[in-house]
């Protein structure tokens, strides 16, 4: 179980110090958790705090009861936290096979690496020896990024807006990947997303806005209200038009 206790994060901006996260406390059990909310609300910052990329100004992070607040990115990764970037990183010379091997922590065979690629809907044969560089499209990189998290198969898997920057066709495939993952990947799967179809496969939904948790609960409880609000907003727009 992942537990966040009173997490605050402040950042220096042009207009002085801004509170990005305000006293966020959360308990995330096993299952599919989707964190949603408006842009700039602090969702990605929260994910980076969990992965150790950002150090919180105050607060504690516990993984299965162990305080991991002061652990580095590497140490947290080794304890079982995986993180799929919103904008996957490109590497000159490192191949898809290399990256999946590094993710799995051992020299895995081409066949095993291909199995992970197939899970994310990529025709493995076409990709396994390609470099993870600018020759790959945004959608391809996203799926390779997800494959690295699958290859790690850790107790906490974090995905920061997996749908961002990919086309509609790729998105439909991506949803299938997450639907499948819901049935196969164990532990806590935390997805930051704005997409209704991803929210639909959540066991639990957390709404973050303006640096704080606004709502938290079962999908059945949160989703109708969230979508209702969105529909009202759309209706107003339509009426005005």
């Amino acid at each position: 179980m992942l537990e966040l206790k009173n997490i605050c994060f402040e950042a220096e901006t042009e207009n002085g110090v801004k509170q990005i996260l305000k006293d966020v406390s959360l308990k995330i059990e096993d299952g599919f958790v989707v964190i949603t909310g408006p842009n700039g609300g602090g969702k990605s910052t929260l994910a980076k705090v969990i992965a150790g990329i950002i150090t919180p100004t105050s607060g504690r992070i516990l993984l299965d009861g162990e305080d991991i607040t002061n652990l580095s990115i590497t140490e947290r990764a080794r304890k079982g936290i995986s993180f799929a970037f919103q904008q996957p990183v490109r590497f000159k010379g490192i191949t898809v096979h290399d990256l999946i091997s590094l993710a799995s922590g051992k020299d895995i065979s081409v066949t095993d690496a291909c199995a992970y690629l197939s899970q994310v809907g990529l025709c493995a044969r076409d990709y396994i020896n390609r470099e993870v560089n600018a020759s790959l499209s945004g959608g391809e990189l996203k799926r390779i990024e997800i494959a690295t998290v699958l290859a790690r198969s850790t107790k906490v898997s974090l995905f920061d807006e997996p749908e961002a920057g990919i086309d509609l066709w790729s998105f439909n495939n991506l949803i299938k990947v997450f639907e499948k993952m819901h049935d196969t990947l164990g532990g806590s799967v935390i997805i930051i997303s704005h997409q209704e179809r991803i929210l639909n496969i959540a066991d639990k939904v957390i709404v973050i806005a303006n640096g704080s948790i606004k709502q938290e609960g079962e999908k059945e409880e949160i989703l109708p209200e969230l979508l209702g609000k969105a529909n009202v907003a759309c209706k107003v727009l339509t009426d005005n038009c």
Partner: protein
Amino acid sequence: MNNTELELLKIIADMEGTPSGAFNIRANGGLADRKVTENIDIRTKTDKPGIDIIVKPGTKGEKVHIPVIISETGLSDLVYNDFIIGENADVEIVAGCGIHNCGSENSGHDGVHTFFIGKNAKVKYVEKHYGDSDGDGKNIMNPTTIVNIDDGGYMEMETTQIKGINSTKRVTKSRLSDNATLIIHEKLMTHADQYAETDFTVDLDGENSSAHVVSRSVAKDNSSQLFLSKINGNNICNGHTECDAIIMDNAHVSAIPQISANHIDASLIHEAAIGKIAGEQLVKLMTLGLSEKQAEEQIVNGFLK
């Protein structure tokens, strides 16, 4: 041949045991072993040190190994090797120089390689430079490569210097005729106080000739590198030069690409990028469980692969 020399041969020429094709092994300034084939002749020069490698027209799929190894300290070796590649031949040449300097004096190898590539012939030329030392002596290599490609000829040159060469100045000059193609891939890593200079000149003289010069390098510690690349477009031609360098620690890298179009239909591009390892690359690999140092190694190894 002792174990050190056999190890050097393995590193620079991937040679384990006797290769199947033609070969010429030069060790400590003299001939150590040679084999010729029906299609590939190797002759010792009579006017100066070095060899002529003569490939018969139409020879296909053969490989020639011509490694040079130095395991004595204080030895300075200079050779002139000429490669005469017959029309329509298609061969691979594996050269390379390995120095194991066990003493306090400098050891060096300066090779002048001149290629005459016949009409429609195709050559892949692989050259690796490597050095190690037990003593204070420096390993120095200054290779010069002169390439002449006749009509429709093709040459792919892969040069690698990964470790242990204190000082190097690599000069490559090439002249291409009609429809000729030259592709150069350079991989270079310097560390400690090493210095490496690369100086490529390509004259695209022929109609529809093309050249693609790519250098990837990593400079660590206090080492310095200078990359010069000049492409002269003297006809309807395509030329591309690219230098991509990772700088680390207190190293210095200068890249000076120069393209000159002397014909209205010459199309030339140069690109040069120097920078440290991107922080997000390190972070990504650290989220996979690698330490910062391991992540750095993976990025460098991949970049120079």
